[in-house]
């Protein structure tokens, strides 16, 4: 009997779609309602596991097709492929963690002017970003774009350049207050001779990748003291010592928290301002130290925590999150169609985020700093334009569900709630809901489909929609 009933019914939801929508906004770039309903058949923790373990097969995105349809040696062409992945890859966290490390190891194309190095760096984050911190720091220390960005190619035996050594400690792994100026000097010495083989000049030869190169004659093999330990350290030893520090565990945990859970003050203040959720930071730091610095394990603790689950709508969306999320919802770029380039070339830039070109070595400032009059206008107009007249597939699906069969709704407050549910589900402030209901009352005479499209336009124009 039960078996018969199950066949005719939808699989029973094991997880709350609202919680999954939250997870996908944070661990990814959002999810459509259809995706959420498919995912709801799994336990929440299973979905987290799936996101933590990306594979090429599971992504549903074909590398061959990307290469075939979206090739091109420009920053814009590369970023269009990244945006395509953000919209279409099932392995959403793989793309989100790449963006996370791009924030942390903020490397600017405006100085490097070498797109292959910049895009190789992002590809590296896509592949190692959920792995262990030692490998991540080793990879970034050997990354030509980073070496050039922070002048490690000018870091010579007898003439150390401290730029990389300093930022490695200050911005990448520990934060101020956890090391001395002497530690910086010794770290810099340990990275002498870590440089890259210059590719042929861009003009007129074109783009060739740069390769890491270690020059033994330029390396300082002398004794160094770093964080209380002494030896003939090289860069690898420095990284080994760093990842064993509780300060590193804590710093990385705070970075992950600020990016995935809730907006925190900007990085330079972390030495003075305690975390807003010290218990979660402690649990994440413990997971870091217990697992030998596995980012995946830290994230597992974080995503499964009650703090994370209840932190809905606590973050201002970055321009990239807003743009990728809206494009995913409207469903216009589910296949290879030209046009993604303009979003990374102008749309997000006008909103204050030019990927591959962070404003400073500190990356982007987050939270409220994303919003000013100009970019709020850009955000609203962009989202409203994408919804358009409602003929795009994603919006059509939402409107279909609200206008057909037994599920059709027209009573104003029920319509507002049902629409907010289908577009997210998203929570809005009571003052926002009240205004939307007023619209639904005023528009009762509208043609039903057009009325819902108008309501959707208003929802994406709300301040609430700017929050993830």
């Amino acid at each position, binding site marked *: 009997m039960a078996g018969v009933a199950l066949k005719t019914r939808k699989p029973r939801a094991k997880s709350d779609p609202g919680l999954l929508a939250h997870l996908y906004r944070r661990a990814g770039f959002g999810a459509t309602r259809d995706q959420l309903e498919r995912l709801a058949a799994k336990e929440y923790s299973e979905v987290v596991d799936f996101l933590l373990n990306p594979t090429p097969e599971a992504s549903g995105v074909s590398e061959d097709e990307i290469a075939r349809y979206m090739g091109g040696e420009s920053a814009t062409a590369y970023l269009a492929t990244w945006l395509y992945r953000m919209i279409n890859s099932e392995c959403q966290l793989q793309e989100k963690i790449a963006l996370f490390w791009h924030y942390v190891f903020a490397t*600017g194309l*405006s*100085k490097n*002017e070498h797109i292959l190095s910049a895009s190789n760096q992002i590809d590296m984050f896509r592949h190692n970003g959920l792995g262990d911190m030692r490998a991540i720091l080793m990879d970034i220390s050997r990354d030509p774009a980073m070496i050039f960005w922070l002048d490690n190619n000018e870091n010579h035996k007898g003439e150390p350049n401290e730029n990389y050594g300093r930022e490695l400690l200050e911005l990448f792994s520990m934060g101020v207050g956890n090391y001395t100026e002497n530690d910086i000097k010794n770290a810099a010495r340990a990275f002498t001779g870590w440089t890259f083989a210059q590719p042929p000049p*861009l*003009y*007129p030869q074109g783009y060739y990748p740069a390769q890491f190169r270690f020059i033994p004659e330029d390396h300082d093999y002398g004794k160094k003291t770093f964080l209380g330990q002494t030896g003939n350290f090289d860069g690898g030893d420095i990284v080994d010592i760093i990842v064993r520090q509780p300060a590193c565990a804590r710093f990385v945990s705070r970075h992950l928290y600020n990016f995935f859970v809730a*907006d925190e003050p900007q990085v330079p203040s972390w030495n003075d301002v305690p975390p807003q959720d010290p218990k979660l930071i402690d649990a994440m730091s413990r997971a870091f130290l217990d697992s030998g610095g596995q980012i995946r394990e830290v994230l597992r603790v974080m995503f499964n925590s009650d703090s994370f689950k209840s932190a809905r709508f606590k973050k*201002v969306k970055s321009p990239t999150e807003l743009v990728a999320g809206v494009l995913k919802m409207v469903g216009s770029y589910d296949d290879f169609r030209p046009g993604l380039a303009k979003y990374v070339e*102008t749309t997000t*830039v*006008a*909103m*204050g985020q030019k990927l591959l*070109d962070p*404003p*400073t070595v*500190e990356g982007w*400032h987050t*939270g*409220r700093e994303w*919003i*000013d*009059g*100009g*970019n*709020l*206008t*850009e955000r*609203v*107009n962009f989202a*409203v*334009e994408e919804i*358009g*007249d409602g003929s795009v597939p994603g919006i059509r699906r939402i409107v279909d569900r609200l206008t057909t069969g037994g599920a059709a709704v027209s009573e104003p407050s029920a319509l507002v709630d049902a629409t907010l549910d289908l577009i997210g589900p998203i929570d809005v*402030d009571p*003052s*926002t809901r*009240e*205004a*939307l209901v*007023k*619209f639904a009352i*005023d*528009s009762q005479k509208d043609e039903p489909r057009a009325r819902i499209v*108008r309501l959707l*336009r*208003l929802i994406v*124009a*709300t*301040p*609430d929609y*700017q*929050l993830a």
Partner: protein
Amino acid sequence: MVRKNGGKSKDPVLVVVQLTGGNDFMNTLVPYTSGMYYDARKTVRITEDRVLKLNDTLGFHPAAGPLKELYDAGDVAIVQGIGYENSNRSHFRAMDIMHTAEPSRIATEGWVAKAIRQLDPEGKNVLTGVSFGRGLPRAMSAPGVRVTSVGDLDTYGLMTAVQIQEQRAEELDIFKRIYTPAIGTGATMNYMKQTGMDVLSGIDQLRAVPAGYKSSVEYANNSFAKSLRDVARTHIAGLGTRIFYVQHGGYDHHAVEMPNHEKLLGELSGALRDFMADLREHDAADNVVVYVFTEFGRRVQDNGSGTDHGSGGGAFIIGERVEGGLYAEYPSLDPKTFANGEDLAHTIDFRGVYATLLEQWMDVGSEDIVHGKYEQLNPFKAA
């Protein structure tokens, strides 16, 4: 002090023009008698027969004819050799330095925004500072300073993709309800709501500007000329804007510089001339000064096709109240004097030029904005 003229405020107005990418100053104001210039510039060079001569040693790029007209009329002060110690070669960092007047540390407050804060301390007019073109420059950004950022005056507005005007008006009314600040919504939400209300207020005031404008001046059809025309129209409408900001991009000429630089200088100087003519036609020119700057100059030596990032750029101060002429010194072309062994050394600090504009023109204190005292120019006519 408010000077009145025909009911319009005659408060001093500053128009900041940003040339993005690093304008090649040596090929803008060409040292056409210098053998060192022609030695360094084997390909990317303006030959003597093509320059528009200003004097026995310097001449404008041939595409800058309209700028030369303004110069000949005595309205252009050329600031030669502007820069700062250890000029940064990263576009973004260098532009950031220009925006924040802070070469030695990362700062977030823009110099224009801080001037706006002094001009309108209570933030009464969201149009005190207006940027035309997409994206608000950091120069105009500082906590608590409310400015308006307009992509294009003719299409400026919210929910602009809504085609049916009646629907759009209804939706904007709901938008206004949604953004009206409410109690208990939290700091971030409140901030966003206030920002949305400011945008609406700016839109309300700017809406009537295009219809109220007539002019015999025909600007060229490019985005920079369009932005300057938007500045002219808004200024003429008398909405109390004290600082305008516009951008002209594309100056990063590593390759194929000759035709591309020529095109940009033609657009720049043509739009500046048309802008001044437009203001004069509306008796609105005498309280306006235009400041044209870039983030850095370019490498002395060319690379065979273009020029790489360098230092020692140039700036222009333009207006009827300007005492035209050459200011500061042209950077030395003697390789022994080069910065980094390959760049022009600056002859005046850019912060002194900001201080000049702020104190002598805008009547605003500058020390807090440029973080100290710097040598100023005297480019304005006595009142």
